[in-house]
């Protein structure tokens, strides 16, 4: 037991403190190089540094490399490689605005190391009913999983603190679920994601001092996806991510094509005189999670974030219940 507690505490602390300590330096460096974007939801439109992905990647990669010295498994290598590749895709997208199809295709490429390393089990396990072996289909699932989780987290990164706060909740739910199903090594390997997200949230929460950018959001999403695959918790991971899945589902079902958020001409939300957010009456605007939350009336950015976090906690609870249900067969 002690041989697992020590690396768990160590990698959690390393991921948390590296992100916590590096991010202020990254903020200064980005400001110095004028790599800032306007926060349209802030009174006066403050300029916020972006991207925060590099500090996240350093925290996660260092923690996972140290974990590899304790548990030299192929699954940790897959987590490291896929997460790093997704970061590269994100940083390219941060520097150059690329088309709507670039990210899904590039992220599908990031999933290939998982297949090449053989860091997966082709049994897809469902709660209550057991597992189904789908060797060929599972490879397709892997190819789709990383773009879906990456873009899902990226699409929810629309308000101060939401992406990192939501990721903290979802990843800790995944960690708890991995402990519940007794997959201890992957549970420990998932800890850096939760603690890196938590440390980044300190700077990303309202009012944001830094935005994660595509590099940060895709690092979050891809790592979450690869943990789901190597930890054999695909269904649990999907449940914990449901609020973000709903956001993507609503967006795609209203826009009806793969498109970059920046390419949307009609804004789904507008500002009231006291700078609260409210829904627009524009029928061409996409339906999003934020737009649905605002259907009840105007809210501040902080209030919307709070509703999204409550939704995240609800999904996290369902995910943990699902993990317990994995042990029951009917």
């Amino acid at each position: 037991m002690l041989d697992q507690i020590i690396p768990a505490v160590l990698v959690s602390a390393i991921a948390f403190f590296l992100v916590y300590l590096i991010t202020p330096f990254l903020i200064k460096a980005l400001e110095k190089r004028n790599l800032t974007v306007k926060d349209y939801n802030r009174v006066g439109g403050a300029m916020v540094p972006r991207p925060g992905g590099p500090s996240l990647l350093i925290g996660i990669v260092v923690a996972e490399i140290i974990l590899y010295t304790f548990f030299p498994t192929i699954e940790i290598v897959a987590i490291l490689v896929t997460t790093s590749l997704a970061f590269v895709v994100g940083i390219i997208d941060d520097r150059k605005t690329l088309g709507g199809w670039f990210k899904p295709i590039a992220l599908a490429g990031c999933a290939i190391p998982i297949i090449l390393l053989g860091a997966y089990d082709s049994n897809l396990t469902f709660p209550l009913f057991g597992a189904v072996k789908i060797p060929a289909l599972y490879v397709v699932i892997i190819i789709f999983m990383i773009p879906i989780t990456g873009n899902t987290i990226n699409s929810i990164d629309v308000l101060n603190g939401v992406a990192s706060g939501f990721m903290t909740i979802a990843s800790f739910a995944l960690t708890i679920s991995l402990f519940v199903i007794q997959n201890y090594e992957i549970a420990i390997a998932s800890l850096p994601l939760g603690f890196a997200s938590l440390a980044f949230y300190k700077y990303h929460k309202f009012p944001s001092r830094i935005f994660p950018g595509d590099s940060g959001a895709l690092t979050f999403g891809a790592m979450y996806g690869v943990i789901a695959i190597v930890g054999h918790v695909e269904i649990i991971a999907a449940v914990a991510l449901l609020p973000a899945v709903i956001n993507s589902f609503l967006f795609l079902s209203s826009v009806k094509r793969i498109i970059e958020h920046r390419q949307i001409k009609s804004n789904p939300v507008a500002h009231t005189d006291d700078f609260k957010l409210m829904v627009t009456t524009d029928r061409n605007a996409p339906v999003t999670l934020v737009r649905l939350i605002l259907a009840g009336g105007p809210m501040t950015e902080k209030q919307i974030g709070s509703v999204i976090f409550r939704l995240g906690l609800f999904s996290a609870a369902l995910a943990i219940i699902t993990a317990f249900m994995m042990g029951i067969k009917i």
Partner: protein
Amino acid sequence: MKGTPIFSFIFVMWVLIIVGGGLLILFTAPISITEYGALDSFLTSGVKAVIAIILVTIWIYILSKIKNWIFHKQIKH
């Protein structure tokens, strides 16, 4: 509470995931094609994939209907 319909929607999605998984296990898992030699595993996977795609399509269709039903007033607003 703010966002109550969304909590309901998440709960419905969760139930659909579990029920859909059950259907997949009950009807898809036992399928095994054994009369085509080397093509057996390929055909078995193909049939399972088609059934899975049909289930996912039905799942998305049901979700769209439920979404419209739950959020009708909000979207209209």
